């Protein structure tokens, strides 16, 4: 056994528990085309690097596991992007095998791969299923072909629906679709049509996001396209999703996420509830102990670090208790489970209800929150205000 290198700069001994199954995130930054509204770490025109990237990634994962010395189980694995499905089925399968070898999944582990409808083929779906994938997340965005073209997407609505069928046919246990609302030129009727079409496909899970514009470029583009609904108008779209999806039997378990019973994303839930998580690939984020870090964003820099054996860490911060508390409030509040008041008291010494009595009372009387002996949870209208409410619930 060779020397284990701390290329994630965690220090030694590793300052975190190794006995608890952990979520594992893997980032694949490549895309065929950049969508103007996208804020993720994405590169285009670098398809030739995918083979080398996969090799480096597998080495990264294996090296990390070696550094841990004792193997750590994975609670969930999530391969996201960018466009993971741009990579061939065979290579994805190899990556999945390396991941499960390094971090043996617990028996009910959720293993997700994001799939772009453009890439959806029976072969790809088969390879994913064979590699152990039990969940796919399909980037539908909308079924409206005009909107899809305006969003720079390379598929149409039928293709997106087809992707869902293919995933089902391959036996993938859980199929999720992503939808966007509040698009330029999108009227409430269009959004309702999207919801109807989505529900007809009966996916196990639906993520419905309000389009968020990051940066002046996106703002300008959205304006050129005809502008997006904001504030109260956008809330109308949200209300529509809340009503339609609830009526169809979906549980609203996070601000932008709905699931049929038993299909909530356990990977994301763990992160919202303050779990540690590992991250691999370029521009991936991880939280290990008190350390949060992200890896080199640019594939070339990442590949260079991997080949020279140097650190892949680009940025890091060590979280204080106050930081962790703030983050937990901000993220857990987004979920249907809400805040575990006993946990806040026990882990942070924060008696939220006592210290925020007036706010809690107003939140309840205005119908934004429900308070029980051990939990504070937000209602549907409250979830759409979760950030503002979180700010009110932080300690002084």
């Amino acid at each position: 056994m060779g020397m284990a290198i701390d290329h994630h700069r965690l220090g030694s001994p590793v300052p975190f528990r190794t006995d608890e199954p952990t979520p594992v995130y893997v980032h694949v930054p490549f895309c065929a085309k950049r969508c103007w509204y996208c804020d993720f770490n994405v590169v285009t025109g670098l398809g030739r690097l995918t083979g080398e990237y996969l090799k480096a990634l597998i080495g990264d994962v294996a090296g990390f596991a070696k550094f841990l010395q004792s193997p750590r189980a994975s609670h969930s694995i999530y391969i996201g992007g960018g466009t993971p499905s741009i990579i061939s089925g065979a290579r994805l399968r190899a990556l999945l095998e390396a991941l499960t070898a390094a971090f043996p999944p617990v028996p009910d582990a959720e293993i997700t791969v994001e799939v772009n409808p453009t890439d959806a083929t029976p072969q790809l779906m088969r390879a994913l299923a064979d590699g152990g994938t039990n969940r796919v997340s399909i980037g539908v965005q909308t079924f409206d072909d005009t909107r899809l073209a305006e969003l720079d997407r390379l598929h149409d609505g039928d293709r997106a629906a087809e992707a869902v069928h293919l995933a089902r046919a391959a036996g993938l246990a859980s199929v999720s679709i992503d939808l966007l609302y509040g698009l330029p030129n999108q009227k409430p009727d269009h959004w309702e049509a999207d919801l109807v079409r989505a529900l007809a496909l009966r996916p196990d899970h639906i993520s419905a996001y309000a389009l968020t514009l990051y940066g002046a470029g996106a703002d300008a583009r959205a304006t050129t396209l005809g502008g997006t609904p904001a504030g109260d108008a956008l809330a109308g779209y949200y209300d529509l999703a809340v009503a339609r999806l609830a009526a169809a039997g979906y549980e609203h378990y996070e601000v932008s996420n709905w699931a049929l019973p038993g299909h909530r994303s356990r990977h994301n839930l763990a992160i919202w509830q303050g779990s540690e998580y590992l991250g691999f690939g370029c521009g991936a984020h991880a939280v290990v102990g008190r350390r949060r870090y992200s890896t080199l964003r640019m594939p070339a820099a990442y590949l260079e670090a991997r080949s020279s054996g140097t650190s892949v860490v680009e940025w890091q911060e060590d979280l204080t208790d106050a930081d962790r508390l703030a983050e937990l409030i901000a993220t857990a509040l987004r979920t249907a489970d809400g805040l575990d008041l006993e946990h806040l008291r026990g882990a942070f010494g924060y008696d939220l209800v006592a210290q925020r009595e007036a706010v809690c009372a107003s939140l309840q009387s205005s119908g934004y929150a429900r308070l029980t002996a051990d939990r504070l949870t937000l209602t549907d209208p409250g979830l759409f205000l979760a950030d503002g409410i979180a700010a009110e619930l932080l300690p002084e």
Partner: protein
Amino acid sequence: MSAADLKRIRNFCIIAHVDHGKSTLADRLIEMTSAVSDREMREQLLDTLDLEREHGITIKATAIRMDYAADDGEDYQFNLIDTPGHVDFSYEVSRALAACEGAVLLVDASQGIEAQTVAHVHKALKLDLELVPVVNKVDMPSARTEAVKGEIAEVLGVDAGEILELSAKTGLGVRGVAEAVVNRLPAPMGDEDKELRALVFDSSYDKHQGVMAYVRVVDGWLQKGDGIRLPGSRQDAEAFEVGIFTPAFQPVDWLTAGEVGYVGTGLKDIQDCPVGDTLLRLGDDTVEALPGYEPAKPMVFAGVYPEHPPDFAALRKGLETLRLNDSALTFEPEESGALGFGFRVGFLGLLHMGIVRERLEREYDLDLVMTNPNVEYEITTHDGTVATVGRPSELPDRSNLEVVKEPWADLSVVAPTEYIGSVIELVRQIRGEIGEIEYLEPTRVLLSYRVPLAGLLIDFFDRLKSATRGYASMDYELSEYRAADVVRLDVLVNGEPVDALSVIADRESGTLRVREIVQRLRKVIPRQLFPVALQGAIGGRVVARENVPAMRKDVLAKCYGGDVTRKRKLLEKQKAGKKRMKRVGQVEIPQEAFSSLLDRSG
């Protein structure tokens, strides 16, 4: 100094409206007499405060001595006392005038005589000053030199032929002005053999030398080390330094009758050396003081609070330090339910208020919350108690009020004749009494009114400017207190009265006014998690309502692993933003809400 020497002194100031070229003429005179080396020469040299240079206005009077070689072959000592141009500081003009024998009246050839200029001319004439009328900027294409000469002749009752032409910018006519100062303005009277009498026309505070009294020696003489006394403040002191203005302080051996200079007194409080007092020799107990002048009186009062409560002590220190050089500034502590501990501060006017605020924020690094300003009322309660009220929350109930009096002012406006109707309408809106019309020239008039000062306070000047397309100018002076029928307008936020939002208004327009206030508040109070109900009330009766509806969306759509740090940073920012706001119950009220009436855009 002999009587012959006295004849070669000229003490004068320049009376001019803002932007009519006073500072430029002063600069040209200074250059011509080389009182200041080129290295020291800055544009608008007399404006010493940074703020003055930035605003292009003079706030405090300063002085400079120049030696001028006149055409008659003699050398003359010029003491030019600079005067502020803004109406807030017009009392400083009176001080400066009292220290002079004459003044140069400077009028812009395009703009003509403005209201303030007329007011200052009247003050000068009342003091028997000689005037040298000058039309400036005669080189401008828009100059109406002959018409403006006509206006000056009308106001001064002089022959148009006596009026000089000048371009201070190009230097044309500067020497002519200097010659007129020599030939037309009288030399100071005064007798250096008499007992010392020196008029304190201004003062400043130096942290090493204490109060520096700016004096015009009327009789006698004074040298370093002399014992002095100030009958007004009953203070004794030692003149440990005497000197002249170059314009920097330059020590000299002595100052004698007719001269202008400064005296370092070592006094620690500017109130111990009040402007208008007479400086006498210690031991000369029978000498009568000179007629002084009224101390500057604040006319506008506002609550000033630190945004961060722990800054209260720093705010006190800042106000105390500013008062060392600004005797017109008054303040006393007050407490507000919404804003905590702060001060009720008295100002000369809104410009003064703005300048004080800016200096506190800049020089003392304070973030301030200010309330809407108001005038001071004289009240008599049923038991006969008389008090002045400068704070809305102190206005007693109507049931306990015998009489309320409010300050009135004499307002003068100069405007083209076509706007007379608009000006009258504006004056009527503020409950003013229509007065006289005097024609300066066939197309421009001087209008005189008596108006409640409260009506001038907030935005009268802006409204006047917009009603006359910028052509009108105004001046005002406190004239009297008159009975008033006023009410306190209260604002309730979600049912809770907020003391710092209360204002006083006349009963008749109270309902309109409080409606305007809650409407403005609705605009400045951002939408928040919970709806905000705003109510305007008079005497406990709600007469206006507005609602700020609750926000519907305040959440980022996505929050996955890579977004969490961004989310936390955003929360921290949000939290910091909340700290800047004042809280009433669950409602966050931004600072600007407390001075919403000053927001001209509203």
